[in-house]
């Protein structure tokens, strides 16, 4: 159970400035919300590099290897067919499917890996309790602090107002 303190900022510069300050004060996890990705938001809240590229590479190579193995097993080992004297294991003609399958598996890994890393789908979230938060996907710049101790909620709200936030509200998460 924790308290979510939310506040809206008038522009992205003030938002990022506040995010930077609050991240250093460590009163809870800081998160910014914007209708489009903001340059510097990841640094402001201190995120590490994404693991998605490694995931994509591993699955892409794995998919390509599996595709080659299936073709080799089917056409050269399990049921070799002599078509015009061409060798049953003819690597050049296995390349197109190997490449395409690598791309396919890698794309699946990126797609499902993304939702897994983001914890989506998640239809409910405490921030949605605030009606004005609807503007976060249209033109609003919002910031939230997840205060782990309920006693901190009011203090963080005060701090947010001091940093220039409007519409500051506190949502208590039900456990």
């Amino acid at each position, binding site marked *: 159970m924790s308290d979510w303190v939310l506040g809206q900022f008038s522009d992205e510069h003030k938002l990022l400035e506040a995010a930077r300050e609050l991240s250093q004060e460590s009163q809870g996890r800081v998160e910014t*919300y914007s209708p489009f990705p903001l340059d510097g938001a990841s640094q402001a809240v201190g995120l590490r590099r994404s693991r*998605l590229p490694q995931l994509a590479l591993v699955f892409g190579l794995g998919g390509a290897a599996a595709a080659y193995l299936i073709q080799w097993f089917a056409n050269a080992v399990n049921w070799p067919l002599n078509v015009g004297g061409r060798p049953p294991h003819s690597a050049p003609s296995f390349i197109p499917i190997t490449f395409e399958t690598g791309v396919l598996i890698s794309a699946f890994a990126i797609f499902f890996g993304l939702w897994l890393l983001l914890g989506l789908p998640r239809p409910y979230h405490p921030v949605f309790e605030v009606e004005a938060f609807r*503007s976060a996907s249209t033109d609003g710049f919002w910031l939230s602090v997840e205060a782990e101790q309920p006693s901190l909620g009011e203090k963080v709200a005060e701090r947010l107002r001091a940093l220039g936030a409007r519409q500051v509200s506190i949502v208590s998460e039900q456990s």
Partner: protein
Amino acid sequence: MDPAARDNLLDPIPLIAGRQDSDSLTRIIFNPVWEKTRPGWWLLFLLGLGGTGLLIAAISVTLAQGIGSWGNNVPVAWAYGITNFVWWIGIGHAGTLISAILLLLQQRWRNSINRFAETMTLFAVMCAGMFPVLHLGRPWFFYWLIPYPNRMKVWPQFRSALPWDVVAVTTYFTVSLLFWYVGLVPDFASLRDASNTRVKRIVYGIFALGWRGSSRQWHQYKIAYLLLAALATPLVLSVHTIVSFDFAISQLPGWHSTIFPPYFVAGAIFSGFAMVLTLVIPARRALGLQEVITLKHIDNMNKVLLATGLMVGYGYLMETFIGWYSGDKYELFAVTNRALGPYRLVYWLLIFCNVLAPQVFWSKGMRTNVIVTWIVAVLVNVGMWSERFVIIIVSLHRDFLPSSWAMYRPTWVDWSLLAGTIGFFGTCFLLTLRFLPIISATETKELNKELREERAEASAA
């Protein structure tokens, strides 16, 4: 000097017209989704449904009666089925090109048209996919194309170009769908938050997956989107290359040619851009999107059309030259038969539509004239269909042995399948226009912010 005049001097035709902010852009882009259904939409939708009905009728006849209901017969074993397949799949190439390649090249004019092109890609690939499956003769056994362990103990023959095609086209469709959906999620969240009824909020909310637009989400999202674009870029080039292998690795004069892969890819981009223009020009007017799809976008697309048109023209020239230079009498015959044989009208139509018509775009006045652009784009669509007709039917109908020469005549089923897929494509597209924002609101807002910052910097300096 006042700021508006200075903007005009810096950038004569802007990417986003007028002074917009995030709120006004959201309103412009979402308005077609929120407004009441217009009578014009219903009219076109009914027309599209009629076409879809014709498609269903033609497919039923094909299934009940067999491929005999088509005009194909030896020597023209591949006729409209494959012509339509290659035509549609070519149209489907602009989507990923605009989305992925132009994203990696940081071409900002893609932002207003990428969703358009991606949506078009999905439906075009659906239309394309129908033809090879129907052409199987017994389409209910299509799953034999997939390598699965079975009691018949048979496997697909992977040394043939046709299984390559299956994998390439299904991969292309799947990756395009994932890319399209990932791009749509922030817009679904925006639709969810802007919707005025509970039903809309729930439906858009389900598709939005609970997107909040938080820094942690954007952090992973940006990487995922870039990675998908990086994968889609070689994919788009490989798909039409593999389609061209269907022809290029065979021995038939007119098909057996190493120029096919690059020439097919250029042709695919050419026809894809032509189809985007064909759809974008009426849609931007009808839906009031002139502020976000400006003449700058149309100008740039016309430049791509001109460039790829020249590449395709070079392909035609080289085919003819190699036909003569090879010294092979069958190759030479294939070339002369195209230009002077019984189907010569189709060949000259293709030269007119694909090589001559786009030359008007050397002039800036023509590139920014929407009516001229639309007419040329439609001509290019016709020309690219004729190109596939010439490659497939004209090469097949007179091959090595004069005793086996024959003429090909399409039946009503052939024509209905072509017209029916156009109707189906239109129906799907109209439904998208009705329920989804056809321009990425997220990317347009981001671009608007960048453009405004640049303007601010320019006026400060």
